[in-house]
């Protein structure tokens, strides 16, 4: 019998206690919420009271980008990729370290390395990318990196890269017409020779 009444007492007190907690949340609803009104408020999120600012982010994994002017075609990123979403094809440059104006190929990287290869194909399938960041570390020229982030002036926030067609998620970074241009040049050279 005593158990019966303690049960009733516990039920009533614990339920009222719980209702008190929820009522406090109801009254102070805006205090703790972390909701982002997505299309209007975009990440980087407006200030919350967690106490850090966006400049202190280390890195943001938003999308892979390649600076083709710096790429020397060493295939290190292709080998580092655990899901094989990077595909690179290179061809030998006619002269090492020289600009090829016809196909907008730059001969020397910003680190001063002279390129021996022309990258004719540099495809990244972002639908397969697992955002592990492993490809960005072995790159000797630091030309492949994750874009986005609050401070990226060069590349604005672009995490909304959804596409209606899956094949549109294959990003082709190589300069357009590089392959044909190179073949044409080689043919011309052969003809001259």
């Amino acid at each position: 019998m005593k158990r019966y009444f303690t049960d009733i007492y516990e039920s009533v007190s614990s339920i009222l206690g719980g209702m008190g907690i929820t009522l406090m949340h109801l009254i102070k609803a805006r205090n703790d919420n972390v909701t982002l009104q997505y299309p209007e408020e975009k990440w980087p999120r407006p200030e919350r009271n967690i106490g850090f600012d966006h400049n202190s982010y280390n890195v943001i994994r938003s999308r892979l980008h390649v600076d083709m002017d710096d790429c020397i075609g060493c295939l290190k990123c292709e080998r580092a990729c655990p899901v094989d979403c990077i595909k690179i094809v290179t061809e030998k440059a006619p002269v090492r370290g020289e600009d090829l104006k016809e196909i907008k190929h730059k001969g020397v990287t910003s680190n001063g390395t002279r390129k021996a290869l022309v990258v004719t194909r540099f495809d990244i399938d972002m639908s397969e990318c697992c955002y592990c960041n492993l490809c960005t570390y072995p790159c000797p020229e630091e030309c492949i990196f994750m874009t986005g982030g609050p401070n990226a002036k060069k590349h604005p926030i672009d995490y909304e890269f959804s596409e209606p067609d899956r094949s549109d998620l294959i990003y082709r970074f190589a300069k357009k017409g590089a392959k044909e241009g190179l073949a044409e040049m080689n043919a011309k050279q052969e003809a001259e020779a």
Partner: protein
Amino acid sequence: MGVVHGQEMVLNIGPQHPATHGVLRLQVKTDGEVISEITPYLGYLHRCFEKHCENVTYEQVIPFTDRCDYLASMTMNFGYVVAVEKLMDIKVNDRVQHIRVIMAELQRIASHLLATGVFGLDLGAFTPFLHMLRDRERIIDLFEMTCGARLLYNYMWVGGLSHDLPKGFVEATLNFLDYFEPKIDEFENLLGHNKIFVERTADIGIMPAEVAINFGVTGPNLRASGIKWDLRKDDPYSIYDKFDFDIPVGQGIKGTIGDSWDRFYVRLQEIRESVKIVRQAIDQLPKDGDVHQSMPKKIRPPKGSIYSRTESPRGDLGYYIESDGSDTPSRLKMRSPAFTALGVLDEIAGGWLMSDVLAILGSLDIVLGEIDR
């Protein structure tokens, strides 16, 4: 007393069901609401993790370990990294160790928050679940700040970490802990001591200690059965022996030792202990030290094998690595804690009502990504 037996009905709970925490199919035999037999069918989320690992190099395995237990990626990384480092005999410096511990314990808090919250959701309490998600969000913000990813981090590398801590991380973490500690009490009052919740979980799904050991159940589920067994204390890896923390065990406050309420409560207590560890680790964090210092240029472990265990939020996470001296593992087996926890379901949940079975399933805290691998 005469009992009327109806016809038995076979019912499939899942693969698409709100309470199965993923794609799990439980084939149950029911007599009215009473469930007499449970047969779990796994494999709906099988992604050939172990076969993959035989085809990629050691560093490329780490993103795959993330995806096994997607709710506790940091500790999955941690376990793998510890195993490979043991195999290669690499010693990492103190700063790396401290950062790893901070990350692993924050991850444990996040994982337990979700586990306890979802447990409430299984019993129909929606609000605690969203309160838990709210706080987990802040932890994920901390991770995002550190390594740029919110769920699948690929943060701990063999011999180091992918990034050093960002500027302001320590203050942000301390702020978070100050904010978070009162919330644990609030959560405990809102859900843990609610009479309906207690009635639904106390004395339900009792797992005696012998059964737990025999079925290989580990982690909070084993501790709820009253056994003080935690790899962080009993077989310390990394620098866990430096910290002062308790191991909460089930005491049967509301019912019997090893019931669903104990499993819930042990997790809640572990959140408190993890907060303690994070505070200590931040206090002792060495100011200098390069996180890439002892990273080998090429990971080629010597020929041999190792079985290494670490404490993930779900229990003993073991990695069995067989190396043939090349840069890809010749065999990598993950001993997943949720796999064994699910194995005990039929034993402890048979004969209960349908609502209880789903409550027990929720209390075991399984993650199908890790079970199916």
